[in-house]
């Protein structure tokens, strides 16, 4: 007993000390300062300015920020969830909403929504952040893809200025012709590639956000619902439980074959990554997000550049989805955390963030207040987001879908038979989607 007492006393003191940290009263905060823990990816929102803006209005809340590299974010959240040590607020990749919601680690947020907010959110974002009728995040930012080009190289190759409006967007065959004409060198001696390699993920081809579009564009959302064209466009069944007959349709195989030929037959893009290939003048075109506009304006690449809508085959489509904020369902401060998430995602802090970051907001009401989004080249992204934007195939197993399909697309880029490889991906998906 004599030995147990000091241990118990120490434990009690530690417990009191940790409790006191959150509860210490000050003149400004008579009920104490509440500390909210927040996990976010490195060099990504939420930024110190956003936190400072919130704290200026809410001095009785402090934010304890932890950061991990973006590539480790999902793993970190999994491990923290397994250990029962999730932070109060999570900054996570929007397409994972359904995974986290189905596992019960996110708090539904609609009860914190002011009137009219739901209608103000971009439909694609709303779909991405919803699960079984509940909304788990208002969304923080959006981005999407377009085709950047080196105007000097195009002029030298005798290629006419690419279109600047969605209704005149190139088809993939037109784009391929431009890639081939602009490319310099051939075989093993290419000095300038037609299309830059992907800079998403590890730099290998196959990243779903970019490369699944090559398959989905061969689909048609207005076709009958039992048709393969309709199914190709969505890539997964509406309940997110199967990809059989959705990912390996004849149209998807056609898209995958087109994708494979870019690397192996036409050879207008390399198999492995070249960092900053477009900015360094090693590629005529690149498929990239709206952030690159700010990057090119900040650091002049030394050539004239432009943006054209992403080419399409049968149906124009761009993927939506970006980082967003959610509240841990296991938080002891759900109300306070939700208030922070709402303040950062809406209102003046969201407007200021959109102004300074150059990202596309998820709230439609913010667009008129951001004139730059109505002007070239950002208007292409903003329009594409509204008119062509679709979430990546939503499922409560999105992370698994993303990995398996990315691997399949990478292998197809490396020369695998599209039909065989897509069938294999569907077989792998069958296991994880049904669990």
């Amino acid at each position, binding site marked *: 007993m004599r030995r147990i007492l000091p241990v118990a006393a120490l434990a009690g003191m530690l417990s009191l000390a940790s409790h006191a940290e959150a509860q210490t009263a000050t003149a400004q905060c008579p009920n104490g300062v509440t500390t909210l823990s927040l996990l976010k990816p490195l060099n990504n929102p939420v930024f110190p300015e956003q936190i400072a803006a919130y704290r200026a209005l809410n001095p009785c809340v402090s934010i304890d920020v932890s950061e991990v590299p973006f590539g480790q974010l999902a793993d970190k959240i*999994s491990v923290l969830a397994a250990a029962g040590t999730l932070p109060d607020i999570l900054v996570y990749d929007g397409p994972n909403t359904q995974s986290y919601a189905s596992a019960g680690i996110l708090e539904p947020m609609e009860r914190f929504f002011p009137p009219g907010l739901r209608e103000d959110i971009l439909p694609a974002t709303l779909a991405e952040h919803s699960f079984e009728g509940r909304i788990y995040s208002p969304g923080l930012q959006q981005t999407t893809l377009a085709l950047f080009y080196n105007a000097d190289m195009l002029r030298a190759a005798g290629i006419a200025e690419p279109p600047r409006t969605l209704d005149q967007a190139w088809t993939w065959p037109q784009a391929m012709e431009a890639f081939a004409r602009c490319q310099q060198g051939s075989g093993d001696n290419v000095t300038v590639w037609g299309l830059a390699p992907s800079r998403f993920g590890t730099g290998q081809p196959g990243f779903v956000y970019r490369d699944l579009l090559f398959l989905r564009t061969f689909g048609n959302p207005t076709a009958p619902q039992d048709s393969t064209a309709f199914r190709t466009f969505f890539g997964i069944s509406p309940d997110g439980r199967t990809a059989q007959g959705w990912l390996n349709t004849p149209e998807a195989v056609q898209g995958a074959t087109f994708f494979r030929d870019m690397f192996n037959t036409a050879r207008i893009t390399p198999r492995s990554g070249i960092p900053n290939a477009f900015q360094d003048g090693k590629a005529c075109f690149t498929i990239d997000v709206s952030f690159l506009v700010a990057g090119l304006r900040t650091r002049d690449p030394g050539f004239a550049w432009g943006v054209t809508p992403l080419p399409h085959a049968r149906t124009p489509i761009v993927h939506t989805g970006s980082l967003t904020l959610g509240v841990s369902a296991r938080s002891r401060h759900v109300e306070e955390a939700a208030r922070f998430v709402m303040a950062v995602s809406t209102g003046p802090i969201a407007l200021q963030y959109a102004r300074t970051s150059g990202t596309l907001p998820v709230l439609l009401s913010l667009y008129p207040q951001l004139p730059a989004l109505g002007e070239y080249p950002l208007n292409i992204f903003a329009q594409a987001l509204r008119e062509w934007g679709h979430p990546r195939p939503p499922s409560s197993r999105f992370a698994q879908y993303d990995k398996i399909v990315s691997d399949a697309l*990478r292998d197809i880029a490396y020369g695998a038979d599209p039909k065989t490889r897509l069938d294999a991906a569907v077989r792998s998906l069958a296991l994880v989607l049904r669990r």
Partner: protein
Amino acid sequence: MTRTARKVAHWATILAFVGPFLGFLLVFQYWPLVQMVNDSLYDFSLLNPARRTFVGIENYTWAFTDPDRIQAFQVTFGLAIGTICLILPVSFLLAVYLNGKLPARGIIRTIVFLPVITSAVVIATMWTFLLDANNGLLNSALTALGLPRGLFLTDKVQALPSVIMMTLWQQTGFATVLFLSGLQGIPQELEDAAHVDGATAWQRLRFITVPLLIRTTVFVVVIMTAFALQAFAPALIMTGGGPEGMTNFVAYDIYKLAFILEAPGLASAVSVIFTLIVLAISLLQMRLLRARWNY
């Protein structure tokens, strides 16, 4: 002091020395193994491990029948066999060479051993650049020699041999040092006696050196097999397990199942199977390659 008191003191001393390490071993080695076996009987996700369903041996049935898992085992053993088949002769010959009276022997030994103490992540990253299909140093060298360029890590056929070559470069130093210590343990009298009997250098190598190195060889084979079966960094950093699963080594596959595909139950089942296979291989190797004589 009575006999009983002495016995108690004796055991107390033993426990005091061994106890802490035994405790660590139990907590960090054997308890996770028990937990792994337990987890392998459930279906659950890391995001919510409390929500789990007992599935019995279903995870094992799946691990034995799923083509991706079977391929993971095949390529892992392919890596182990390929590495050992190359590393044994290369490191043995290097050891024989370094066992001679060479100038700057110490420096050469250091150079050979250096990759062993370099981080696996650094090596994998470095070889990714070397083997890059577009701008890799190896392709530049091949082009300069007028040879066709390779696709290496982006080709289904070339990816595994590329990783084997990297592992060979990385582990040769360790195997060489082991062989070197074995060579230096062979009594000089045996060599001298054979020399007096008129044995040629080749005969001395074949009938004295190689047989007497059998214990070292067993050790090298077991250690190199263990290293190869643990291969993780090449798949994570260089290939992502591709192309078409050709470098999807079991250690990476287990990580992928647990943390990316959110199936820790399946990952645990594969881990249990893999542990048993590795154990069986090690026992078999030690039995088949055991020394039949001593010196």
